């Protein structure tokens, strides 16, 4: 798609084969991340954000899941065709990932220092001593106070925000070129959220890495992302530079999401929030045409028989809607 990109995903299809039928969790997602940029991925629960991210690192549990179509290329290499050992070398060194639940994403039976050091030793032949020293350095970099003491503590001795910092230290220990952050702040309270985001952005700048930020929080996207992808029912429905998306959303789903955000505007207090009617569709029984049509207030007859293509409406602003 674009030659200057670090990561290019094209037509990705990740399906889950369950007893009730085939769940098309991700169905034809195309995206690209350029070096150093922040790409936001937004959408409701179950829209395929996380599955897209897990697919990039080939972490989809098989069975029941399988990547059935598309290509993922990183730095010119096709990740889907790499042998297992090669993709393992990429995980944690070139592409890292952090998860939503800092409470459960650390191993409870080892100290955080051992875990950060272990991450380094997955990829580099360094002595325990050196890995340990680098772990302390890593904790210092994510601004954990008194890292020499903290490095000996177990995850249960740390707060949620502190654990997420440890996760970030683990993920960034080897200077990855792309960090996939899957809802990194969702489980944290609001003040800590801001601190963690600030830390992430600071480190991104410092290390010149690209970040793929997955969230359902448009506020987080507005503050952090350069470009945004809006996902719905396993598809990308809109893609734009962050300012364009907020100023001029083209897809009715994006418009609905923005409408449902509370706003602080002078003189317009007391506006009721608008909700998007209906529920996220069952991925086993998707409508034939536009997947959003059943919930769309603007839907017309043509929306139903065929699914619209993702079209470039304005330069760099794409939408999957015939009305745009």
């Amino acid at each position: 798609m674009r030659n200057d990109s670090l990561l290019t995903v094209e037509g990705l299809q990740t399906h889950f084969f369950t007893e009730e039928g085939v769940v098309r969790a991700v169905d034809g997602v195309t995206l690209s991340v350029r070096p150093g940029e922040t790409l936001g991925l937004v959408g409701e629960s179950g829209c395929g954000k996380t599955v897209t991210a897990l697919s990039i690192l080939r972490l989809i549990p098989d069975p029941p899941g399988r990547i059935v179509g598309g290509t993922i290329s990183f730095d010119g290499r096709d990740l889907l065709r790499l042998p297992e050992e090669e993709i393992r070398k990429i995980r944690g060194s070139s592409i890292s990932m952090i998860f939503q639940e800092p409470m459960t994403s650390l191993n409870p039976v080892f100290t955080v220092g051992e875990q950060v050091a272990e991450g380094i030793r997955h990829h580099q032949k360094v002595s325990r001593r050196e890995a340990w020293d680098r772990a302390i350095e890593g904790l210092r970099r994510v601004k954990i106070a008194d890292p020499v003491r903290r490095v000996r503590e177990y995850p249960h001795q740390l707060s949620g925000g502190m654990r997420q910092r440890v996760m970030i230290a683990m993920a960034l220990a080897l200077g990855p070129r792309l960090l996939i952050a899957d809802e990194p702040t969702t489980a944290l309270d609001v003040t800590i959220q801001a601190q963690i985001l600030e830390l992430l952005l600071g480190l991104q700048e410092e290390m010149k890495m690209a970040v793929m930020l997955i969230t359902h929080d448009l506020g987080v996207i507005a503050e952090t992302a350069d470009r945004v992808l809006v996902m719905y029912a396993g598809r990308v429905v809109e893609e734009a530079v962050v300012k364009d998306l907020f100023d001029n959303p083209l897809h009715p789903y994006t418009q609905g999401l923005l409408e449902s955000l509370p706003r602080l505007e002078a003189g317009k207090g007391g506006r009721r929030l608008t909700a998007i009617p209906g529920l996220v569709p069952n991925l086993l029984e998707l409508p034939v045409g536009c997947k959003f049509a059943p919930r769309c207030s603007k839907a017309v007859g043509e929306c139903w028989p065929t699914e619209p293509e993702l079209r470039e409406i304005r330069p760099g602003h794409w939408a999957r809607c015939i009305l745009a």
Partner: protein
Amino acid sequence: MSERQRQNGRRYGRRLGGRWKWHRGILLGSLILFFFGLIALLSPLLSPYDPYRIPEKLQAFSLLSPGADHWLGTDLLGRDLLSRILYGARISLLVGVVVELAVTPVGVTIGLFAGYFGGKIDAVLMRITDAVMAFPGLVLAIALTAVLERPGFLSVIIVLAAVRWTTVARLVRGQVLSLREAEHITAAVALGARKGRIIFRHLLPNCLAPILVAMTFGVASNILSEAGLGFLGLGVQPPTVSWGSLLAEGAVYLTVKPWLCIFPGLAITCTVLGFHLLGDGLRDIFDPRLRS
């Protein structure tokens, strides 16, 4: 490095230490087991009589009731029951512990592999486990003993181990199945951990607590099984004594000289109780939900 490990160890020890103190089950269980362990270890010193020697004036010493000379009485051949129980403790405890130590690595390995790899490996391993479990333990024991020609200490170990590993394998597989979905496992894979590391650094250490608990219960169950085999005459053979063989000898006189069964039975009951108290206690302190 070693200094660091020692410090970590101490810290962990202190954390457990805090709970250790207030847990009565563990305290009582350990006390009971310490008592019987000591008895087994020191039986040659503690025994008032030779447990194997048949006295010359057999008539005068046969089937004596408990009294001043023979605290727990004597058996048909005039041998002191207390001494025989003390010596029997060695075999019974040894069988219980040895079987468990032999079986745990096997069961753990099978469980880890079945749980982690799933699919065909899991299916094959677990069907074998099911097949062994489905077979009545006692029938299998009798058949195996027959194959092994002469019943004895070794045959008891083999027979019990042949059945016992299945329980451990099932337990570990179950643990791994739920752990495999844990986020910290996915996180470790996402950071480039190799399969071996995932299995032995992430899955195994997180299974250790339930394994340890199962081992204490396992020793208790092995002691009972040994007694069962001994009772059927498939255990250790005379002149060696175990609590099971004492029960078997005493059973003949159950209505007239009940202490011949009661005292070995009490020894078995107390030891099993000790292991269960300890196991229950360990389960409590390892359960993160009960941690304050």
